[in-house]
């Protein structure tokens, strides 16, 4: 299997304790906001003399939110792009063990982002870094990185728990 998404084979949502609608509603809202901001930019540019170009900063921040919340969603369901050729052919217990190991690495990766991302946001707060477009405190935006990385870690752990209980993840 090549590492790209197969739209005809959507892995169904797993039975999670915290409903996935949490991420879904926020992702949908962020996507809609990005589209609306861009649309409003075009509309005001051609119809009025007002400039909304400064809102680009919000669009970019929303995209970071979409990237991490969507990652969280895909983590819970095991829908990330990966090479399954070797692993998926294994017997179920071995396959499960391999997936638990892979998830442990996911926890490590996003754990690093949560801890050091938090330090980055803290540095920006302490250093009074302002955003380049609107002059807001930059940590308002950067803080999404550690906070939402924690969400990804929790979704990975939830999947590990479901696998260890003998489920499909």
């Amino acid at each position: 299997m090549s590492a790209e998404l197969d739209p005809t084979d959507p892995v169904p949502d797993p039975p999670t304790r915290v409903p996935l609608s949490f991420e879904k509603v926020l992702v949908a809202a962020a996507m809609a906001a990005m589209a609306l901001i861009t649309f409003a930019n075009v509309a005001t540019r051609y119809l009025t003399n007002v400039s909304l170009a400064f809102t680009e900063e919000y669009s970019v921040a929303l995209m970071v939110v979409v990237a991490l919340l969507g990652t969280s969603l895909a983590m819970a369901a095991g829908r990330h792009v990966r090479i399954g050729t070797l692993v998926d052919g294994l017997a179920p217990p071995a396959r499960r063990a391999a997936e638990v190991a892979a998830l442990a690495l996911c926890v490590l990766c996003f754990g690093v982002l949560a801890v050091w991302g938090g330090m980055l946001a803290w540095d920006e707060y302490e250093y009074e870094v302002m955003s380049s477009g609107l002059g807001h405190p930059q940590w308002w935006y950067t803080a999404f990185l550690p906070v939402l990385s924690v969400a990804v870690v929790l979704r990975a752990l939830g999947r590990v728990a479901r696998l260890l209980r003998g489920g499909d993840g």
Partner: protein
Amino acid sequence: MTGTILFAGFAIMLLGGVPIAVALGLAGTLAIFLADQPILAVPTNVYAGIAKYPLIAIPMFVLVGSVFDRTGVALRLVRFATALVGAGRGALASVAVLVAMVIGGISGSGPATSAAVGQVVTRSMVRDGYPRPFIASTVAAAAATDILIPPSIAFIVYALLVPGVSVPAIFMAGMLPGILAGLAIIVPIVAISMLRDFGGKAPVGEGLSVWQTFKEAIWGLLAPVVILGGMRSGAFTPTEAAVMAVAYGLFVGFVIYRTLTLRDLYEMLVEAGELSAVILIVIALASVFAWSTSTLGIVQPIAAWIINLGLGEYGTIALLMLALIVIGMFLDGVSTFLILLPVLIPIATAYKWDLTWFGVILTMKIAIGQFTPPLAVNLMVSCRIAGVTMESTIPWVVWMILAMFLALALVVVFPDIALWLPRVMGLG
């Protein structure tokens, strides 16, 4: 030593089924740690790696794909093309290719087009007398033109990584090679259909009137015009063009076809958000990998080594294509670009190749990889829809691979096939 650990760690995680994004990020982080570099480079580059305005085009073009998928444009395009082309040997197969090319002008990824077209044409092609493995091959090869015909997510990522290459310029540069690739695969498709008597078994057109089907299909046919026309006229940036296409698609879906509901809208936003996230997180974490290969000084020696092999221009291109064939078996287009471009661009610069043209030929190779067994994502999708194994397609798909390779060779030898359009459009 750290360099070896970086690549070995990445390869092991990749083959062990770890998500590509995590394999890239962790291997990079490990190398940064071992080389005694500051770990804060990791979050800084992850954040800065995705917090870029040009990247907003990716979620927006993914959303365009989701919207048009649900409005039922593919079905109406097939009905119109069928009414136009009529029945006969090879007719419906050619229709599938033409429709995939139009959908390619709306969507930005191959597998999505493979699914959209496969779901619409497979049943009628079976009725028309085409063998299922041949159908799967046709759909997969046709959908591969998608990442060449603008919009294309692979092109957006390429333009972002390569200074001096702009999204509008490479979009236009992909247009003629994409059309050429589509026409190239029609040749073996029609030839095989003639020789083996495929198609022409179903009743002629089933009473489809050209005018009636055209009135329905025109809305889909206009979508690429909205996207490219808006960008060309200077009305929109690529991101804005995508959002205008979303607005247009929603208008068609809600008002004209009345195929969409508010529930659909919510689901499209979630689906496009997650699909984009899966791409964006690879880009974000690949920036950590790139940071460590760059600061470890691995990239330049590899590029210098290849240049010093003395293979000449065409020899080097052949070598790069060979490497891409192997790597393309494991990785998708975007990941391939993220990992390999730091090495490939210095080589292209050393030979003074036009970087826009270079992006087009690399993408053509990746497109071919999408339907080259055994690891071929488009083919996997179309085989599942047609209900056949990938092995069964080999006798047919090899001819289409060959045809697209010839198209690629033409673009290599005549770079103007790619560069003429952006030049006359003043996109440098």
